[in-house]
């Protein structure tokens, strides 16, 4: 059975949305949920959010920011930022190709 959750070089949808949400600065869980709802119109449940956060943190793509608040903020790690850049560039390239082909068809 193929693994559909993606290896460490590919993001699941939730993982990618979280990385994009953190791209402009650190956020805690509730802020990420609101932000993702706003930018992608995706209503992410708390379980989905934390499953993805756990995975991203263990893979070293995001890191927790020290805080006295119970709501812990997260930020992109340098590695996470680099990987997000690679992933977005690939998506951009794919989108450009897609648009070009539709125009020539």
């Amino acid at each position, binding site marked *: 059975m193929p693994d559909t959750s993606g290896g460490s070089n590919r993001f699941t949808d939730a993982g990618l949305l979280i990385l994009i949400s953190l791209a402009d600065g650190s956020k805690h*869980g509730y802020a990420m949920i609101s932000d993702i709802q706003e930018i992608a119109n995706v209503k992410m449940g*708390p*379980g989905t959010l*934390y*499953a993805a956060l756990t995975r991203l943190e263990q893979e*070293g793509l995001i890191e927790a920011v020290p805080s006295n608040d*119970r709501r*812990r903020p997260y930020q992109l790690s340098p*590695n996470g930022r680099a990987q997000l850049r690679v992933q977005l560039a690939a998506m951009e390239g794919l989108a450009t190709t897609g648009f070009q082909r539709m125009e020539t068809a």
Partner: protein
Amino acid sequence: MKTTWLLRLFPQAWRDRYEEEFRALLEERPASVGDLVDITAAAGDAQIRYRQLPAGALAAGGGSGSAPQPARRSAERRVRWMMGFYANALLFLIVNLALFGINLVTTPGEWWAIFPLWGWAMFLTLHAATLVRGRALLATHLALFAILNSGLAWINLSTGGDLWFQWPLAATATLLIGHALLAYGVTGYLGVHVIVYGLAMAQLGATAWVYPDAREGALSAGMSWGIVLLAHALSRFSRISLLSLHTLVFLGVGAQLLVQDLLGDDDLWFYYQLLGWGVVLAAHFAVSRGLVPWFGDEWEQRKRDELTRLARLEAGPAEDAPDGGHSPDLIAARVRELRLLHLHAFAFSVGLGVGVVLNLLTLSVGPWVLWPLWPWSALLAVHAAYVLSRRSLIGAHLVLFVTLNAGLIAIDVIYSGANWFYWPLGGTAILFLLHLAFDRDTLRAIRDWESRRVAAMME
């Protein structure tokens, strides 16, 4: 709706690291029924990935420092789980080819080998479903739907009579549509619930139209489900607790049944259902108010102390002796296993009590309570064997083999005079022996025996 109790479903290592902030998140935003499913799924995911990690392994700011270890363990677990699936698929091919061979040689006209193939194919699809998520999960659902319904259609068409296979076909198609809408993110849980309800009502309407006798039942089912749907909507837009919601649904459906009963001509019957449900509601109340000991922190602490003391006794007096697998995290995991087993036994005894009382009230129908209780007691026995034998799969399989066949033999003797029980007995015996031959405990015993022999020869 209160959802923090679901945190107990997560493994200890995860809770040590994320519980506090996750609680803060749940307190900050109102949870819906959909969140129950979402959080439970996340707990299952965390159990598969992090269950075997020691406490503190998911340290804050883990990053690259702690990444290799958890990643490796989680990968190992998943590979083992996947190997189980491939073994299942291989066995499926071999056994079914053999059965079709036997079928072809012995009774060429009568294709009985299709039945084990059909049942096993569905089991295999369910097994595959545990390995995938998202749209791949939808694909396994579609496969299960196709296998189930083609089998039912085949049975229906080959035995003739009414075309009854259309009813399960329509019902399972409705579920599949609901799943597809969720998987493609067309709408949320409440939206899917409304759509599934609408489709189901259309089917109930059609059933009632074809079978006038079923009208009253269809109306009753439609109204009860409608009440549940209203409760779902209420939970979506307010912070009502699960217990209050349960009580509201109970009262709503109870009132509906009472009115329906009073309007009918027969004797009053509405309290049969309400009696059974009332006991379940009381159990829910007891659990949520901390009246059931195995849910409380006190029980957990006591059990933990007890197991730690036992582990120390087993390890002997030397203070620096290795703990021999009795580290605090393993003890915590063991306490969780025992709690789950206690809860299962508690639920079973509640079910048993309710079932027996209801059966006593309806003695004229016969001892029907045995039908649900037999598979459930077998399941509980397997669960207990697994936990008490410290996760020996072969031990649990043995108990399953015995309880399953004991039940089948009893049914055969009572209803058909002992003339078919040896078929499932033989089939499940072969499966058990195959498992025994390849079980990791057996293989380890063989390896130990080999090394002892080698050591003996060297002397």
